[in-house]
């Protein structure tokens, strides 16, 4: 791995946002291709963070600060990617469903997806089915992600899927779901396209659904 790329990789894995920003800038100034910085620096480092989390070496705080570092680097890189018309791995609209204000799981999934090269449209929390539909119509994502922490709100995932069916747009987007009370069998029962038990696995699931795993 190129020294400048490995500096980006290490800055993100270490959760050092300031270093991530500087090393991405430095790599761009050295003429390294933006797509190489993205894939071998940012995406590879977040994949490593996901691996460290799955192996129990990293916990949620470590993931969060690595994701912040990745976002700091991405803020420098994004204008160059846009200028060079480099496409993301896919586009994801994501939100916590109506009635539910919990966002830590949804935020972690957003960050891991962004770290896997996806473009994210985050609708926040307490998102009504109509809002999800509006965002899907506007942004035309490949994937819609919905989260619920509460047993009292998980039924709103099902309600949103039903709303999409009623409006005839269900087949336009892959739907992935997650949250503490959600299981694979619930995802199957309500007709979601995928379920992931944690943020790291959500990124892998999204790639699989895009045929890129």
């Amino acid at each position, binding site marked *: 791995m190129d020294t400048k790329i490995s500096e980006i990789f290490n800055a993100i894995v270490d*959760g050092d946002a300031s270093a991530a920003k500087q090393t991405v800038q430095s790599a761009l100034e050295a003429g390294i291709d933006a797509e190489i910085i993205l894939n071998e620096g940012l995406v590879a480092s977040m994949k490593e963070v996901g691996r460290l989390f799955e192996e*129990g070496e*990293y*916990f*949620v*705080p*470590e993931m*969060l*600060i690595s994701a*912040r570092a990745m976002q700091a680097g991405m803020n420098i890189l994004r204008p160059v990617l846009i200028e060079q018309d480099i496409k993301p791995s896919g586009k994801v609209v994501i939100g916590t469903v109506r*009635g539910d*204000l*919990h*966002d*830590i799981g949804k*935020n972690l999934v957003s960050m891991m997806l962004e770290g896997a090269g996806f473009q994210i449209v985050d609708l926040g929390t307490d998102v009504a089915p109509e809002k999800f539909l509006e965002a899907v119509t506007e942004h035309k994502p490949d994937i819609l992600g919905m989260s619920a922490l*509460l*047993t*009292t*709100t998980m039924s709103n995932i099902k309600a949103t899927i039903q709303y999409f069916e009623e409006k005839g747009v269900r087949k336009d987007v892959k739907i992935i779901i997650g949250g*503490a*009370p959600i*299981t694979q069998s*619930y995802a199957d029962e309500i007709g979601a396209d995928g379920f992931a038990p944690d943020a790291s696995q959500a990124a892998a699931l999204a790639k699989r659904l895009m045929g890129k795993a």
Partner: protein
Amino acid sequence: MRTSFGNFILNSTNPVPMPIGIYAGLEITGASVRQSVTDAHAQSEAILALHERFNTPVMLTAMDLSVEAEEFGCEIRMTEDEIPSVIGRKVTDLSEIDRLPVPMIGSGRTAVSLQTAQKLLSIDKGIPVLGGVIGPFSLAGRIFGVSESLEISLTEPDTLKKLLEKVTEYLISYLTAFREAGVQGVIMAEPTAGLLSPRGLSQFSSAYVKQIIESTVTPDFTVVLHNCGAKLVHLPKVLEAGAEILHFGAPMDIGQALTQVGEDIILSGNLDPTGVFHNGNPQEVTARTRELLQATAGHRNFIPSSGCDIPPHSPLDNLAAFFDTIRG
């Protein structure tokens, strides 16, 4: 220190079933969740209804982790049917933490919790009563923001410690009020600490829980430390808090944990409250409870329980299956 509640558990001939969750009692009384968390009468009625129906050997007040944060001035979202949630962040930096006043116990809904405990004690059935309180790191997270408090545990640990000092002072007062009310102890819920690394949990949770325990526990007052996110890797650091009884969630390998802690520490848990009690059926509850009893067989220092708070609208038949299976 061995307390009277600890002795009650260890001296029981059979396992003492102690599911966490008063909200199932609302299925019997017909009150709403909002009523139960704002009115001591509604809350105590739900707890007593569960006691009458299932002969519960311990009575627990509600696990409502917004009570203390609201008293600190956090905005709360409360609906009829949902356990209240904290909205937004009360403080965002060190200067705001410095200016944050430590509230008086009883100035908000801690009064409801304390009055509920007093009502249960006044019935004088001789049944142990435990109060429900939040743990220090989880309370700090609700005041500063959960994601943000997790992040500053690595980036600004001293800022987080300032907030933890304030919430610890407050929680010592709250536990003291429960003790003075006459309850046998409290269940202190510290779920957010389960998201930390073992080292982080030691620094930002156990160190402060330990201060609270050392300031409040007496031979007649225990602290049951609940952490529904902890895994086996966290166990040695959770033990540092010095609690007599540890209550864990579904991620904990209870059989292994019992082997590691020895006979002096009492463990409790850990059936999935949502997957088993809320979404399951009586047959599934029976099967999972049997598995739990098998995994913990021969350990008198184990209390069968849910791994966390049982959600509202969980079927009463599932609770019945849990009690019936334990009582054989």
